[in-house]
């Protein structure tokens, strides 16, 4: 009996045949696997050859960056005029007031840097005490922003919102829109899922009303009609009007994002907490919302992206945000004719923020997905 037992002999692992791995195989599989594939590759290579070298030549090799006025660029028209962006950089980023008062420029710089210092640890996975950081961002940071940028305390001169411009204004509008709309949106989402018919109906009407109307109409309404809504004597400046319009608009979108999260929460969670004898608010705040918000973060971030892009519409009602600043600068006598550079720069700044946020939200989505699968 013992003789009949064979020992299992494991064959050694061999490397795959040369032509099936490595970069040659990769190129064959991904670029030349069939006739159509090969043709596609050739078409794309040809298109690259046509467009990429001239673009690089214009944007980098022949580009102008030296000097402080347009004479350099006018002398060399074959390249981009980055001198323009360099000279106007502070205006584009901080607006006219902070750019023309060099001793005040530190204020937006501090505001942006503190924001950066708060946001970077937040998006990194392993940071401890994220909750506190987030809380600081949502509560302390706005206070700091007002003190430093608006001023009026500690001897810092007041800079009226009317003097804000450029990226600073874009940032302020989006930030206010985002953090004020968040609690409003949560309430609306809860209202939409409420069992009380009138509460539900009012929430639905509110949400669908704002979602159905283009932001530009709302901004017109805010800038033309808002003063009419109040007894004479009550007035806001333009920026605050825009902020109100943006916030109301944004709250409807936030509500829909949060509702998505609420829907995904298992009904059992609600029933379990009811069984524990918790009242509506207690179970909502302690059990339901933390889970729902976690799930809806990616969609909420997507509404941030949309809002951040949409703040550029304030340029139509006459605010000097980043886009308007770029447009105005490239139409000023000093720099007219260089609008491509102006738009490209503004577009690039918007793109960095939006792409960053969208990568983050996609990363979160994937993570949530794997978490859920692991459960």
């Amino acid at each position, binding site marked *: 009996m013992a003789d009949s*037992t064979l020992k299992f002999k494991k064959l050694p692992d061999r490397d795959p045949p040369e032509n099936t791995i490595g970069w040659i195989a990769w190129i064959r599989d991904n670029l030349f696997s069939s006739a159509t594939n090969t043709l596609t590759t050739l078409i794309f290579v040809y298109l690259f050859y046509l467009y990429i070298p001239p673009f690089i030549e214009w944007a980098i090799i022949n580009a102008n960056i030296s000097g402080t006025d347009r004479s350099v660029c006018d002398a060399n028209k074959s390249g981009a005029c980055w001198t323009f962006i360099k000279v106007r950089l502070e205006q584009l980023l901080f607006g006219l007031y902070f750019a023309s008062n060099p001793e005040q420029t530190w204020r937006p710089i501090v505001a942006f840097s503190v924001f950066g210092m708060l946001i970077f640890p937040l998006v990194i996975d392993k940071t401890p005490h994220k909750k506190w950081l987030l809380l600081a961002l949502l509560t302390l940071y706005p206070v700091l922003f007002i003190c430093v940028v608006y001023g009026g305390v500690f001897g810092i001169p007041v800079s009226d919102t009317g003097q804000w411009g450029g990226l600073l204004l874009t940032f302020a509008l989006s930030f206010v829109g985002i953090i004020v709309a968040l609690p409003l949106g949560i309430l609306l989402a809860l209202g939409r899922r409420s069992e009380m018919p009138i509460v539900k109906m009012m929430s639905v009407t509110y949400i669908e009303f704002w979602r159905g109307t283009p932001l530009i109409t709302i901004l017109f309404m805010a800038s033309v009609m808002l003063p009419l809504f109040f007894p004479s004597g009550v007035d806001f400046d333009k920026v605050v009007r825009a902020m109100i319009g943006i916030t109301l608009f944004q709250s409807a979108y936030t509500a829909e994002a949060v509702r998505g999260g609420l829907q995904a929460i298992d009904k059992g969670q609600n029933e379990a907490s009811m069984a524990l004898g918790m009242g509506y608010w207690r179970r909502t705040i302690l059990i339901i919302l933390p889970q729902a918000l976690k799930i809806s973060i990616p969609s909420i971030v997507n509404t941030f992206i949309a809002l951040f892009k949409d703040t550029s519409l304030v340029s139509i009602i006459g605010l000097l945000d980043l886009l308007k600043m770029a447009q105005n600068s490239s139409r000023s006598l000093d720099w007219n004719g260089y609008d491509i550079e102006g738009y490209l720069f503004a577009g690039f700044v918007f793109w960095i923020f939006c792409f960053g946020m969208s990568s983050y939200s996609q990363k979160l989505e994937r993570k949530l997905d794997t978490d859920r699968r692991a459960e």
Partner: protein
Amino acid sequence: MTSSAASKTPTKTEPSPIITINKLNKWYGKFHVLKDIDLNVNKTEKIVICGPSGSGKSTLIRCINRLEVHQEGSIIVDGTELTDDVKQINEIRSDVGMVFQHFNLFPHLTVLENCTLAPIWVRKKSKVEADELGMELLTKVRIPDQAHKYPGQLSGGQQQRVAIARALCMQPRVMLFDEPTSALDPEMIKEVLETMIELAESGMTMLVVTHEMGFANKVADRVIFMDEGQIVEQNDPENFFNNPKSERTKLFLSQILNH
């Protein structure tokens, strides 16, 4: 049925291989999954493949209808060697039916449409003919009354039987099963296994990856044990279960039988 009954008679006729696998080697990237596999499958033969998870069972049978591409060696199905030729691959695929662990029914088509899709478009049958054939096979797997439902409305066991009927509608010469019962509840396992046993009795050539040892014992002509991408041992069920030759097999059998 008469011809299949004849083939069931124990008289040893000349075995004619319908699948010939020669020195098959396959890699996923740098990972060597299948090593020097040699296997002949004769007409009407039923083969059960078992082995621990990750041993390459699925990969092996998926190579047979070229859902996976192998790098070395040859696979000849019904006289045609598997190459990159798309036309040949489609011909072989229409002669080889496959049943998956997770059914993979088409959710947007009714049960009957799932069955008639390939007969109509690949075999170019008329719809009436295909419907008849579909109903016949659905009757065979005992769910003719579900024909006009959508897959999502059926139980797992029913779905798997539809998947079997869908494969049979192409009137294949070989059927491949990749763990057809491992996603099912016990009582559903039984109904699917019964269907498979009936199919085996009708003389179909079958390659079945499964851990249902009762099924293997009852139906298999040969049981193959795989580990680490190799065929460790093959034998008829009686000897395989009662008198395994290799230590590795013994260990495996003791693990699954005691489980």
